[in-house]
């Protein structure tokens, strides 16, 4: 088991990865893309990239959770980070969509 300091960092990173992953999955959907980027068009491969990024980020989050804790606890932590992340993304889309623009700043 890692020491408390590293554990805190691992969990913080897991939270961030879950949030980013869910953000990317949300932005892969047209309605949410429009909320953040307006009428900007994008290609099918860009949409696919966003989904892949999302899946990778969520997998990374799970890996980080497993690194930080006993497996039984790690799975619970991961599932709950998904809930927290999804809420954060939904509220950002509703009230501060620009905040999510960061996730797709590299997509022109």
């Amino acid at each position: 088991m890692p020491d408390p300091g590293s554990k805190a960092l691992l969990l913080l990173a897991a939270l961030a990865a879950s949030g980013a992953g869910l953000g990317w999955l949300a932005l892969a959907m047209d309605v949410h893309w429009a909320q953040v980027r307006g009428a900007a068009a994008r290609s099918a491969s860009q949409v696919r990239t966003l989904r892949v990024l999302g899946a990778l980020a969520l997998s990374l989050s799970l890996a980080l959770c497993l690194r930080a804790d006993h497996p039984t606890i790690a799975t619970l932590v991961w599932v709950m980070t998904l809930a927290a992340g999804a809420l954060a993304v939904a509220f950002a889309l509703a009230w501060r969509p620009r905040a999510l623009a960061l996730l797709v700043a590299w997509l022109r």
Partner: protein
Amino acid sequence: MFQSLRLSMAWLHTWFGLVLGYVLMICFFFGSLSVFDREIDRWAIPETRFAPQTMPSYDRMLAAIFPRIEPEAEELDAARARVGGPLPAELPVMNWSAYTTHRDPVLALFAEFAVTNNPNDPYDHVHGHVTVDPRSGAVLPHDRLKIGSEFFYPMHYSLHLHWKNLGYWIVGLAALAMLAALVSGVVIHRKLFAELFTFRPAKRTGRSVLDLHNLTGVVALPFHFVFALSGLTIFAAIYLPVGSTMLEPLAMKHAAIAAEARGLAFLPSDEKAPLASVDAMVAEAKRRWAARGMPGEVGFLHVNHVGDRNSHVSIYRAGSDRVALVGQAVHFDGPSGRVLHEEPPQAPASAINDFLTGLHLQHFEHWLLRWLYVLGGLTGCACIATGFLFFVEKRKRRHAAAGRSGARVVDALGVTAVTGMVIAALAILVANRLLPADLPHRGGWEEAAFWGAWLLAFGHAAWRTAALREARIAPAWREQCWAIAALAVLAVVLNAATTGDHLLHTVAAGQWPVAGVDLALLASAALAALAARRLRRRERAVADPAGVAGTTDTATTEAAHA
């Protein structure tokens, strides 16, 4: 029931959700508070504001305290009723237990005493308990109500309704309704992933409330489902008492066999024998846990058949690092101290059950997961509350036009169940700080403050929802939000004034239980004030939509004529 599956599921979701939703609010809200029940205990009982302690020495401390435990007065009264007469002067003690977790500064000690003269039940017994400061062995005064672990926590699973376990049954029914509401909700909603992040607060109230209801229901769906299910499995012996009724002969036969197989005597022998060194047993148990790669502290210690030749001591490891609660028990022979049996890894069903139970009761040491649990619980509250709001929103215009009061009743009950409940929880904290320290039955007075405040909130809600008759928003919501803000701030101020542990001090000293409660109170006050202001704006907008439209019409008419 209806022509389509979806309609039947919608009916189920609406009506069971509505009726049991009021109970579910209580379960989810007080369940969320229960995540930090021991921290709330610290806030409520200033004498216990010190760091968590491990289980102290049995030989040097607990051995002297256990014999002093007496049966509870209420338990003796109930026993007299069961026996139908007076009880024997001396009730022999059957067993002793000590229980602690990584968050407990104080230690809970329990005793069971045999009621020997009950002709209907040879196993009849009563309980006693004390709370001990493990640093000194001092026994805490009995009348310090642990507002977190002894009030908020039992509230969420029993509603403090103990007559014939009625509260447990109502909560169980509510749990079943929750599971059915989740299943039916998924059937009705269907677009689980496509609308996962959909929340449109700018739309009309009905749509935005429904969005929020769907959002809070879906994002924490595994959480809501598993908590409702595990709530049922934890109390399975109450809900499906097959083992103490129809299958009791089989169950008892196997309990005796299982005890024999472990070398643990099921019954005492009636020959006296002193207990060997329990500290030595604890040391051996810890050695064995470390040898299995899971070093740990004692979570639960149980001395069975006290003082008898057949006595045995069971020592369980505190599950602070994993989900399952306590486990890896080592059983010792009482008089000799030798190991009788070390529990092997569990059989599959028992392991799954322990996992579910531990998941629900969370004795693990993981602060992030605890806070995420609170988030999950409050998300559940939001789901239920938005359910009420949607129900009212959908019907209030129709009911107002037809002169029916259904929407108004549901709304008033909704205010009571949501803001009224929070007001009651704050009232008990305020009363806790205001009441004199040595008031007899102080705990009873604190509980009276809780129920009294809730009743007042209900009265206020009933009075201030007349606006529903005109399909407007009831001012009761906003007014109770302001009451919440005021009470929460008052509680923090009173804590500082009566104990001196104000936020600057507790944060600097790292006294996180007390600081955490104070900070949570202040955050709640801020949220409530924000909600009150938003509600004011919505109330005005709903009451005067024509004002805005009129201006626009005049302007466009003028422009057209220009």
